[in-house]
């Protein structure tokens, strides 16, 4: 038994919706390479619905698995549904994460929100009242545990 659940390892070994998306209409990137995790989300939104999503992640196994799972949870959903995505839902869908890796799921939630914010900005709409304030950096760094 390793440190991760079978679901996490499955998403790590076979990440869903991975890659670039040149025609995305919402792109968000969160985290920083210094602390070891960066996630980028691409969204294609049509009529208020996420018709396609792709991600790129630099980070540990949990970072890759949480971003992969987050894309699955929002694909085909409405913007409102995607805004309701929590890191807790991502963790549960992956059958849990080790405590030191929970910050990765926070980052996945933030990546989705960053991409949605970008979508609104491109529409000429201020995203803050809708999406809320983004932390951009990962949770672990805010807590200082990354040691940077």
């Amino acid at each position, binding site marked *: 038994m390793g440190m991760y659940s079978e679901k996490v390892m499955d998403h790590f070994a076979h990440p869903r919706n991975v890659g670039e998306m040149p025609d995305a209409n919402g792109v968000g990137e969160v985290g920083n390479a210094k602390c070891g995790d960066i996630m980028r989300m691409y969204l294609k939104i049509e009529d208020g619905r996420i018709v396609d999503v792709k991600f790129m992640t630099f980070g540990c196994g949990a970072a890759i698995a949480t971003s992969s799972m987050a894309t699955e949870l929002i694909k085909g959903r409405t913007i409102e549904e995607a805004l309701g995505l929590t890191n807790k839902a991502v963790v549960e869908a992956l059958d849990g994460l080790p405590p*030191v890796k929970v910050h990765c799921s926070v980052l996945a939630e933030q990546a989705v929100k960053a991409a949605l914010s970008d979508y609104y900005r491109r529409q000429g709409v201020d995203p803050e009242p809708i999406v809320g304030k983004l932390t951009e950096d990962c949770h672990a760094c805010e807590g200082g545990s990354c040691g940077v």
Partner: protein
Amino acid sequence: MDRIVYLDNAATTPVDPQVVQAMLPVLTGPGGNPSSHYSIGYEAKEQIDTARAQVAAALGCLPGEVYFTGGGSEADNWAIKGTARKLARQGKKHLITSAFEHHAVVHAMQALEKDGFEVTWLPVTADGFVRPEDVAAAIRPDTALVSVMLANNEIGTIQPIQEIAAICRENKVLCHTDAVQAVGAIPVNVKELGVDMLSLSGHKFNGPKGVGALYIRRGVLPDNLIDGGGQESRRRAGTENVAGIVGLGAAIELAVGHLEEKQAHLVALRDYVIGRVLANIPETRLNGDAKNRLPGNANISFAGLEGETILLDLDMRGICASTGSACNSDSLDPSHVLLAIGLPHEAAHGTMRFSFGPQNTMEDAEYLCSVLEEVIPLRRAMSPVWKPLA
């Protein structure tokens, strides 16, 4: 998984079957207490004495200068805390060490800092060496001890301990070296090195875990770390780990007995991997000097990737390696060793240590390279660092 390729011999090594054979009669025999006064007690005492002689022969010292401990960490803690406490009574409360020691040394030093000792943390060069002139410059009248490792556990670079020890001698300062990674990997002779104390650990040279030794030059008297009974000439209390000690003795004899062959074999594997990875995978770098490093150590950074990704990809293909250092795998922080040689955080995160042992073959090295050549491009293709936004 059909095939396991173990390339983490710097973390620990498999116990040599001959070592197991040496330990078995101790574990299955009558098992007397070495301090007891009847035949099976004497027998256990003799077994320990044999092991002590084996360690002494390997290190080039007297058997009476070898003290068994519960591993490398204990030996480091004893040398450092025992010396610091003893010399503090003479007003010496300054210690010198390097910025890239093992945590056993780093944390022992930090514990002393909390108790009012002052520690100088020497910088290391970009290719992974402590400069003897920095040691000389750091020594003060109140310096009690200099502790610099013989070989670094992450990047494998071999430190100029002979020169550092000579500087200490000239200045009448005690010198300790953590030789946990070096013993059994390169020739280690305490008299040639000129150190006052040297730590070693059984499980790094195909011996058992949880047993080590501290060489203490005759006449050097650090305070005890473990107080209690009169074992180890009243300097390290506790009923001896007889089987472990016997195993360590057998292992060190085997390790130094075939050292030249073993080194040549490991250097061949190491240099094959370094050469092929650096040639075939772009934006990779070797950490630590290419030549003056442990025969079995290859430490390589892969730009645009995070080490755990590589670790898991290798594990899924049966390869055991480590990101930076095994001791650190529960922490999100990049390795203090890699930061000390000046690697930026980003590069430090994408670093792997491959450490070879005598049981590894050229086939293992080739397999590692082909797996890396397969997985690194795949993971880079999904890395936002490797492919930044336009």
